[in-house]
């Protein structure tokens, strides 16, 4: 009976640790006491603030490149972590990736080829 109770409380403790571990994130060797989703949200919010600041500065090629890069980073973070593409089957990534690739090629074509040429 005592052995049973001990095993039960050990299982309960392990379960609690597992839940606790979901509410912590290890990032670059540091333990952050928030779930990964909150950490990602913090990064997204910070990136948005930076974007808004850059947009108020005189626009140039560098500013535009940074804005596009930040936007891409935010989109990738949401897709990988919030949409769980990191852990799910690769076929889901392919299902998303193919139209994205085609759209990117089409966009490149439309923006670089002069209108009279097609």
């Amino acid at each position, binding site marked *: 009976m005592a052995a049973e109770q001990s095993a039960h409380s050990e299982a309960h403790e392990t379960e609690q640790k597992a839940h606790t571990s979901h509410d912590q994130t290890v990032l670059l060797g540091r333990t952050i006491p928030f779930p*990964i989703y909150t950490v990602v949200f913090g990064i997204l919010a910070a990136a948005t603030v930076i974007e808004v600041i850059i947009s108020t500065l005189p626009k140039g090629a560098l500013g535009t490149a940074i804005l596009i890069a930040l936007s891409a980073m935010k989109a990738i973070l949401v897709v990988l972590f919030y949409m769980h593409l990191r852990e799910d089957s690769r076929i889901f990534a392919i299902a998303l990736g193919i139209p994205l690739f085609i759209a990117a090629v089409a966009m490149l074509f439309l923006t670089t080829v002069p209108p009279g040429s097609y």
Partner: protein
Amino acid sequence: MTDTTLEHSGAHADAHDAHGHGSIAQRNDNLKMATWLYLASEVVIFSVLIAMFVVYRLENPARIEEVHQASGVLLVALNTFLLLTSSWAMVMGLHEIRKGNRKGLMRWIGLTALLGAVFVAFQYVEYSTLAHEGITLYSDAFGMRFYAPTAFHGAHVIVGVIWALLVVNHARRGGYTAEDNIGVEIFGLYWHFVDVVWIVLFTVIYLI
């Protein structure tokens, strides 16, 4: 203590369950695949609308500058924060139901719906401001290229808010558990996609 990897849902772990739960895992995977294929079709539609704007933007930089000066970026930036926060609330709701916390799910998805509704309200305010400046759907070439992607996105947000309320209602009736929450995950995929589209629209239309 784990790393940044989230523990995968129980669906795949059930694949070899002797009580025939492999079919549940298969069903869940099929549902997710169908959702991703639907999102792929949405990528095509939004890409066309965004391309339409980008081509116009490259050919008419002065008009874009004019509109940016007239409308400002503050309201739209606030809207972006609302949508990002709603996305975080959505995934926290899924996180909670995976721990078996039904009430937590309801609170977080309720917050998602609320933030989505406020987003739509602020977008209406933005449209009213632009209309006051003379920028409407048919006012000039810019009007159609601006309203088409943003309004189409807004329609998706409205659908998402209604869907979120249905998820909350289903949760209230005990429809989701720690083992069976694929409905929440599917809604999450849709909502996060809507957020990703806004991330792109915000940069392309309002910032660059």
